[in-house]
């Protein structure tokens, strides 16, 4: 088994203007997702949603404090899931059903040090 981080990149502006109905659908999609991970032969180890990049503070070279995300992009990192899966195909199957209606996801293998 290996661990994969599923990074969710979405257009924040869409969330800012979304109706309560849409936000409710997104919440429901994440709840449904969590319930279905094991059917794909994987296990959900964790996951969080992040506050928008407007709340981010970056430090460059360890000292210079700047307001905002480390990299400015239209679709910004807005949350993640950490999953355990036997191989990339299983991780991609989980990634495929990860809710990200205003963007997409990136799958990164996690290094395990033992």
């Amino acid at each position: 088994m290996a661990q994969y981080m599923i990074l969710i990149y979405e257009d924040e502006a869409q969330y800012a203007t979304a109706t309560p109905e849409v936000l409710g659908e997104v919440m429901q999609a994440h709840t449904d997702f969590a319930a279905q991970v094991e059917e794909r032969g994987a296990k959900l180890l964790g996951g969080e949603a992040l506050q928008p990049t407007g709340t981010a503070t970056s430090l460059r070279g360890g000292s210079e404090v700047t307001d905002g995300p480390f990299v400015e992009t239209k679709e910004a990192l807005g949350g993640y899931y950490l999953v355990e899966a036997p191989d990339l195909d299983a991780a991609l199957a989980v990634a495929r059903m990860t809710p990200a209606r205003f963007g997409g996801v990136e799958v990164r293998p996690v290094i395990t040090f033992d």
Partner: protein
Amino acid sequence: MSEEASSVAAAVADAHRREWALVLAATVRVTRDLDVAEECAQDAFAAALTDWRTSGVPARPGAWLTTTAKRRALNVLRHRGVERRALPLLVEEPTVPGPAELLDERLEDVPLPDHRLRLIATCCHPALGQAAQVALTLRLVCGLSTAEVARAFLVPEATMAARLTRAKKKIAAARIPYRVPPAAELPERVDAVLAVVHLLFTTGHTTPTGGELVRRDLVERSLDLCRMLRQLLPEDPGVTGLLALLLLTDARRDTRTGSDGRLLLLDEQDRSRWDHRAIVEGAALVREALRHRPPSRYALQAAIAAVHAESPTWTDTDWHEILALYGVLGSVWPSPVVALNRAVAVGFAEGAQAGLAALDALADERQLAGYGYFAAARADFLRRLGRVAEARSAYEEALELTGNTVERTFLAARLNGLGAGRDG
């Protein structure tokens, strides 16, 4: 070299071409590491060069080479046991056989299990970029050296070595599985493999740059690969269609240039010198591939190639049949290049004016903007319509977008032949 040594060398070279993928794929099952498996497979071929001189060429060279490579792999694993545990291993199916079991596969008269499809599926995994897929396939499935793969794609050897290393590192670190994709995913995965084989063929059929029209090595490798796929997936309509397409297209290879090296188009080619065995084989495969509904894009492209291949002369070409096939192809696989080819067929079926109108309807397709064949097709229709000034600028544009010397010479000759036309 003595006669015996050279006949052994020829047998090893032949085995390398036929059996490399089989040997490597079986060895990867033992090592679960592509690099170690490559080393062991190479060692086995090197050993064959000396051993076969004393013991003779074995009845089943592939089995001999596989056993030798696997035995070496088991030795390497024993010696490197401690350090290897730190390396990421290729992911296998849950039921990994033990080393003893793996070696048992060498038992005489037991057919060797064929692991080539796993190897091909891993090389063409969609998580790898297509450039990496092509490079891995040539290196691991066809057994080309890194230098040869680099030459095939006209990049420095160091660049290709880095590309291969990076791809193999991703396979290991991201755990791209070494297995035949499950049935539900198979069609999509086979499509990726077919795209790689098709790209190899088209790159060889008309090399994008350089002095030769055809790169025989690439064309022949892609045909070998396609035949291998046909053996592994005999029921797959895409595989059948692609093999048909390659055979029917390549049947014209020897007639595509004149004795002076000049490019000859379909209307000038000596059809008696087309490879009629390839045409018969390709035509039978087309019929088989077209039985599936809906037909695959390759089956339809092959069917179009078959109309040309089976037409006794250029003037006998059944353009209406070709147009109908392009219509179906455009609905199965809509693409600007298909639309371009269809427009050219319109020009032959209904005249240059209609062809030009069909082409001009595609003028806004961004994918065709930098495409030399689009400008060349326009130039040809304009020339036939006597619109010399416009033809001249279209030929000039086509020349700018064309890197192959043989094609450039052809376009330059057409440009010169325009002379001072009535509106030039």
